[in-house]
């Protein structure tokens, strides 16, 4: 900007940069040796607070302190237009001194944030009742609060040319595997998108394989979960304005762990851990099992039960597969609808949908009552997983199994299980085996999977697919 420009034209040109937004404040303020321009958005910055800060700085400048512009909340640098734009859009206050051509920045954004309430989709009974909010600074503060160590490293970068979104990753230097950190860095740097809308989008870029139903990053809104995970050497990725963190590398079984396990008693924790893993099998296999039963192997039913099944299926016009699809579709629709419904009428619709229609559909003879039991059991079991993403995965997984069962009965289920197993073994999370400790097979680690052991020992993630190989080297894809 030209020195000869008058203050007024300067104000106009700055306003032009921001396209004359009405919430932009550009004012001339007098300073010790001439006037300066204060520039901020009054919607994201408190005007009163700005006055107070400016007053402090003015006093410092009058007192002629060396480096009077550098305080805990402010800094001075050479002026450039891009700096000005960046600072103002981020909610800072920029003070422009035209004659020394300096830019003083006061860091004081006041974005509206929620309070750190417990996330409603990840409730626990015991443990912290805190949750992340839509501000990365607050989120990091929640983590720092639990981990008072200098080893906790916070790094950030900005992604998306249009959205200019801040993405932050957090790890513990002494525990995390440097190669994992490097991998995260490279993957983050390789994101070339004009818009970064949400964490899910970043997850797509960070995943090893996008087309698998299994999430390779653990999404959580709980600080305690993130803390426990980064203490095991994992990396957590935050995005500004998103109340969740992504954690990796994870294994399949870590989705079945809940902070409740570690806060509760050992036996109780182990019991619920086992219960969750059993519920995984129910959720995936039960409808398929029932279809195979009524379509291929009715002889395995004990006599008393066979009479009941016979009564139930006798007048159903559809094949078991179609029957199951009807109920499944019905339940999924109810579930989807109740999420969108306003809170006061949600339960009502749930009852109408679940009880009234469910009863009517059986009475009308469209589906058998046993099928309703089976599908309802399955739906409930799938919600046991303490993670929303894995829950959707589990719900989707059962459809291929139902199809396989309707083609080949138990044989189809057996083959499906094998294929699923191979698929899971092929998956990796940040190049580390997803189905550890099954691959590489290590019996001594299984106890950690199925039981919550009495002491919480931070254990490192299994790093390679090959037993005993130097990390990241072995097990090249064939």
């Amino acid at each position, binding site marked *: 900007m030209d020195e000869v420009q008058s203050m007024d034209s300067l104000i106009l040109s700055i306003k032009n940069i921001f396209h004359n937004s009405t919430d932009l404040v550009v004012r001339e303020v007098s300073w010790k040796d001439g006037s300066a321009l204060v520039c901020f958005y009054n919607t994201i910055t408190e005007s009163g607070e700005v006055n107070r800060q400016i007053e402090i700085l003015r006093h410092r400048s009058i007192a002629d302190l060396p480096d009077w512009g550098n305080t805990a909340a402010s800094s001075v640098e050479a002026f450039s237009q891009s700096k000005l734009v960046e600072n103002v859009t981020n909610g800072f206050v920029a003070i422009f001194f035209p004659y020394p051509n300096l830019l003083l920045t006061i860091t004081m954004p006041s974005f509206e944030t929620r309070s750190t309430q417990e996330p409603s989709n990840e409730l626990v009974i015991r443990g912290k009742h805190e949750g992340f909010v839509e501000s990365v600074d607050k989120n990091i503060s929640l983590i720092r609060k639990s981990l008072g160590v200098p080893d906790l490293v916070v790094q950030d970068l900005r992604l998306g040319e249009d959205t200019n979104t801040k993405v932050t990753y957090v790890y513990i230097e002494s525990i995390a595997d440097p190669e994992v950190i490097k991998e995260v860095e490279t993957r983050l740097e390789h994101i070339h998108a004009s818009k970064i809308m949400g964490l899910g989008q970043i997850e797509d870029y960070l995943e090893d394989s996008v087309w698998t139903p299994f999430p390779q990053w653990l999404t959580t809104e709980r600080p305690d979960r993130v803390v426990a995970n980064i203490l095991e050497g994992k990396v957590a990725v935050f995005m500004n304005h998103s109340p969740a963190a992504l954690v990796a590398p994870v294994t399949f079984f870590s989705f079945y762990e809940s902070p409740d396990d570690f806060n509760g008693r050992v036996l109780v924790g182990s019991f619920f851990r086992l219960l969750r893993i059993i519920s995984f099998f129910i959720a995936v296999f039960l409808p398929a099992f029932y279809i195979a039963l009524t379509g*291929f*192997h009715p*002889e*395995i*039913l*004990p006599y008393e039960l066979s009479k009941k099944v016979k009564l139930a299926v006798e007048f159903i016009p559809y094949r078991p597969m179609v029957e199951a699809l009807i109920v499944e579709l019905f339940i999924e629709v109810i579930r989807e609808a109740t999420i969108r419904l306003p809170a006061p009428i949600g339960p009502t619709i749930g009852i109408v949908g679940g009880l009234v229609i469910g009863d009517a559909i059986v009475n009308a003879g469209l589906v058998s009552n046993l099928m309703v039991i089976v599908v309802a059991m399955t739906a409930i079991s799938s919600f046991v997983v303490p993670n929303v993403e894995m829950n959707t995965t589990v719900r989707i997984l059962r459809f291929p199994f139902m199809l396989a069962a309707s083609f*080949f*009965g*138990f*044989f189809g*289920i*057996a*083959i499906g*299980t*094998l*294929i699923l*197993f*191979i698929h899971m*073994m*092929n998956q990796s999370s940040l190049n580390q*085996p997803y189905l550890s400790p*099954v*691959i*590489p*097979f*290590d*019996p001594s680690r299984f106890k950690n999977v199925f039981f919550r052991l009495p002491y919480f020992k931070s254990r490192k993630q299994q790093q390679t*697919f*090959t*037993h*005993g*190989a130097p990390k990241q080297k*072995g*097990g*090249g*894809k*064939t």
Partner: protein
Amino acid sequence: MKFMLSRNQFFLLLFIVQTGSSFFSFPAPFVNAAGRDAWLLFIVSAIFHYMLLLFYERNYDYFTMGPFVSWLYKGYWLFVVISYLAYVDYTLAVWGFPKTPQYIVIGILVTVSLYANLSRAETAINLPVLLIPLILAFLGFLQFAWGDVIWTNIFPIGQITGTEWWKGLLKGQTAFIGIELYLVFRSRVDIKQNIKGLPLFVYQMTWFLFFFFSVLLTIWYFTPTGVKLVPEPLLFLLRTQEVTFIERLDLFFLYIWTVWTIVTVTLVSFTALYVHRQHAKEKQVRDTIIWHVLLVVLPLFFLKKENVDYLNDLIIYVHLVFAIIIPVIVIFINRRKRK
């Protein structure tokens, strides 16, 4: 393909390959050939098995395959896999899929192996882990048969004749098939983990007890006339058990056995392809696919009962050549060379 095995992985792999298809097909012909004293015979056979393992352990370093030997072995493994597939497909056709075209069933079985073999080497190696809970369930459910066994069936002891000895020892070899994988993968085992001595003995005992139990149960449960009628005695035995919550355990275990066999087929295919890649490094995917196409096509020629039985008889002699004669020759030659 670079991979390393832990001791557990190595023995698990070996165990699954050795028990794979044979644990259902083994007891009936063995007991029929050896009569009431089959269990005695099996102890003798197990000692032989242990000696063979010790011999392998001493000399595995000398067992290196040139292209010629490697092609011989690939042919052998192809034969093994085909006879397994023909057997499992015949059994499935009889039990559950009489009307389904057989190429579809074989196609499905082989697809699994193809998928596993196109994945990382570690995927195939660790596939047997899936079977551990299933094997435990199988052994658990077999315990229900204790109430029905007739202890006196093994008496009188020692009436076995010379021909029965000979025939029984031959039939007993069915339980050995797959032992040659020891030589192939032994050098891949973590050097830090000890195999010699106790671990090898533990493996031998696991293998022995597993088969010994099945032989003993067959003798105890069936009369000699009965066992002649039933080709898969253990499956039949499960069929007769009454458990309160479910009938017909045999159907479950038929499919568990199918999974077991597929895993075996996958592992043997993996071994063959692994050996193949040591001297043919290019076009690995193409070779893998060709191998599996062969697996779909070839068993279709052997799907009759008499063919399946013929293969099951023949495989014993072929196995003897490849588990004992060729390794001994190769090791002998290599020892001479290195001296």
